[in-house]
């Protein structure tokens, strides 16, 4: 990685920062120790995400106008988009999970977009945040699947469409891939978001050198455009994978 060169060039231009500095969790009200109850910048930006979602989904739609305002249109679009996704991917009987899926999508998309504001903090770039979201999905799917189907849920691992001698081997593979789900589910989101932000900061380190700074600023602009896309697509991917896992819980037969 170019982090060290970036830091070295940064010294030359008078700017000293590390590309990963932006992800440091700091207590908001002084002190250096972080306990589980400490209010940090992560807490602040998560709270801002919740406030922004409240403003869009509750305040902007409170008038329930026949001719919707811009805010109401966006809220209705988001609602319809996720509702259709749950229906199409997880099935019609999964709409009971729609509020949960909608909450996940709105939180991730708002955390991603708030993180794109310069000098802000991206909460979804932390594995600790995304692993909790992914584990909640994993536990929901597992517990609901077992409660609804009992031992038939284990048919998920017994691939009846495969030849009999292959089935035990496939069962092991399926079992591993099932338990890796929360890991890949969370790392995909956090890794994508963190990688993009780190790359922007690496280019920002190069911007301090006069010769390459126009190229660097152009690269930051291009990366920022890509990041806006990634912020939405990763929220979409997280949500649609949640729907895919829910479909497994509702219809475990292969």
């Amino acid at each position, binding site marked *: *990685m170019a982090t060290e060169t970036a830091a070295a060039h940064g010294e030359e231009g008078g700017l000293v920062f590390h590309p990963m500095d932006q992800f440091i969790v700091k207590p908001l009200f002084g002190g250096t120790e972080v306990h589980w109850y400490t209010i940090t910048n992560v807490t602040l930006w998560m709270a801002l995400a919740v406030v922004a979602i409240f403003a869009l989904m509750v305040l902007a739609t409170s008038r329930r106008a026949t001719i919707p305002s811009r805010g109401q249109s966006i809220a209705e679009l988001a609602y319809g988009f996720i509702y259709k996704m749950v229906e199409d991917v997880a099935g019609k009987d999964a709409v009971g999970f729609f509020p949960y899926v909608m909450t996940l999508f709105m939180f991730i998309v708002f955390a991603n977009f708030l993180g794109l504001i310069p000098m802000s903090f991206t909460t979804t770039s932390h594995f600790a945040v995304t692993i909790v979201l992914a584990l909640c999905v994993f536990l929901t799917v597992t517990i609901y699947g077992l409660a609804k189907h009992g031992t038939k849920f284990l048919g998920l691992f017994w691939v009846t469409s495969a030849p009999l001698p292959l089935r035990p081997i496939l069962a092991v593979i399926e079992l591993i891939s099932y338990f890796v789900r929360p890991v*890949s589910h969370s*790392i*995909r989101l956090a890794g*994508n978001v963190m990688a993009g932000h780190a790359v922007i900061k690496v280019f920002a380190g190069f911007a301090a050198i006069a010769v390459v700074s126009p190229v660097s600023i152009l690269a930051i602009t291009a990366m920022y455009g890509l990041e806006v896309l990634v912020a939405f697509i990763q929220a979409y*991917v997280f949500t*649609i994978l949640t729907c895919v896992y829910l479909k497994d819980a509702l219809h475990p037969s292969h």
Partner: protein
Amino acid sequence: MEGQLAHIGAGIAGLGTGIAALGVGNVAANFLAGALRNPSAAASQTATLFIGIAFAEALGIFSFLIALLLMFAV
């Protein structure tokens, strides 16, 4: 010496992200090839496209994570 080896390892792990890019491109290219043959069925398959891309990309992200671990945690 060990720190330098970790940096070399991080560089090698960085190759993994590039190879994952090949995988993502493969998914998108095949989707486009299929979509041009049967454009009416393409719109209903975009969700599948994104799931495929997400699975291919996850492995690249894993190698990026290994690179980060080698850089900052080892």
